[in-house]
């Protein structure tokens, strides 16, 4: 049982990977590739041997699908948006938009047309991706197994690539707005002249590397922590669902139901935190406080 249990877990944590294998590579089924080419990985080993040039088809597919679902719903509401009595969908969409708009207005005081829609996209999209965590762990993988696909991870946010992809985009925006608002000199000054500063020019120059190290770390920590916080929470949640699924049937629902209910809080909270921190980081990028 121990072997099969760890296999079960590993199988559940393996993405459906489409990537490039080098020539002369021995596949999991024993065949040897004659030339380098793109293919679906047949095992976890193959997937990791593909290196950087591989796509997690399941993560991307679910993420894009859920993103399209979100935009479809909201676009439908936007098209029918009326200033008279709103219908059910418009009501819901308006509640979401007002909630996000208020969050943005409380934190970000500048004028920027990007941040509010960005925050809305992040919140709804991350929430939907997290929501896949509440689908029983074997449902969708089993369905796809019947369709001939062996690996299927349905929660995109349990894939660190997905969270990193988003957090690095946010990071790019942070850099962009920092440079735009403060200028290159201002941004460099912020990185090198704080938190330690001196009136003595020599001492000031001496402190530059120290400041750069501190500020650099705190700058880099923003996207990394943003990505890993979301990933870690969802990965752990998913892992616990998988572990619960290993238990005998009578014990499963006594544990998975409370965990799922608790997880409703976690997925909402994580989506909110990702959105809120994005707003905070971007408002910090806009502030010329130093």
């Amino acid at each position, binding site marked *: 049982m121990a072997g099969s249990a760890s296999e079960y877990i590993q199988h559940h944590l393996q993405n459906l990977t489409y990537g490039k294998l080098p020539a002369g590579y021995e596949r999991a089924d024993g065949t040897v590739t004659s030339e380098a080419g793109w293919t679906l990985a047949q095992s976890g080993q193959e997937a990791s041997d593909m290196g950087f040039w*591989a796509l*997690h088809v399941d993560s991307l597919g679910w993420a894009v699908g859920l993103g399209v679902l979100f935009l479809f719903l909201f676009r439908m509401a936007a098209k029918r948006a009326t200033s008279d009595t709103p219908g059910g969908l418009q009501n819901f969409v308006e509640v979401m938009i007002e909630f996000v708009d208020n969050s943005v207005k409380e934190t970000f005081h500048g004028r920027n047309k990007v941040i509010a829609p960005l925050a809305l996209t992040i919140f709804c999209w991350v929430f939907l991706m997290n929501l896949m965590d509440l689908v029983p762990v074997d449902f969708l993988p089993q369905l796809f197994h019947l369709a001939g696909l062996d690996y299927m991870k349905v929660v995109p946010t349990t894939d660190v690539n997905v969270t990193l*992809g988003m957090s690095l985009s946010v990071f790019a925006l942070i850099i962009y707005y920092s440079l735009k608002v403060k200028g290159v000199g201002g941004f460099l000054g912020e990185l090198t002249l704080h938190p330690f500063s001196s009136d003595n020019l020599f001492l000031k120059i001496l402190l530059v590397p120290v400041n750069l190290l501190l500020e650099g770390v705190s700058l880099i920590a923003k996207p990394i922590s943003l990505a890993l916080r979301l990933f870690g929470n969802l990965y752990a949640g998913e892992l616990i669902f998988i572990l619960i699924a290993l238990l005998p049937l009578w014990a499963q629902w006594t544990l998975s139901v409370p965990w799922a209910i608790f997880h409703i809080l976690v997925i909402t909270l994580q989506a909110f935190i990702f959105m809120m921190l994005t707003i905070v980081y971007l408002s910090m990028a806009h502030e010329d406080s130093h």
Partner: protein
Amino acid sequence: MNINLTMIGQAIAFFIFVVFCMKYVWPPIMAALQERQKKIADGLAASDRAARDLELAQEKSAQELREAKQQAATLIEQANKRANQIVEASKADARKEGEKLIEQAKAEIEQERNQARDALRAEIAAIAIAGAEKILETSVDANKHSEMLDKLAAEL
């Protein structure tokens, strides 16, 4: 836990979604929200204005009512005064008329009495002459005795 192209794919998808949201989702809904906000604000302002108008109108109508009452009171007073005047005047007229009539009647009575007295006098003179004729058995020449007869008639 492989870091791979997925990251870039996700970033591209993220970018596209944000742009879509920014262009086609956020503005129309925000516009609808703001329009509704404006409508509600306008409605509240209008109701405020209407309430104020109503108050003003009520005040005005109360004032007009008061003025009308006052006017009516003045009119009634004037009418009463006028009526009294007319009654007084007609009373005076009537009295004057009555007096005049009485005066006339008195004058007429006097006149008729005088006439009757004259007639009587003449008749008595005639009767006296007739009587005297009888007594004398001769005719009295009225012309001869007219002086005497006139004297007699004046005595009656």
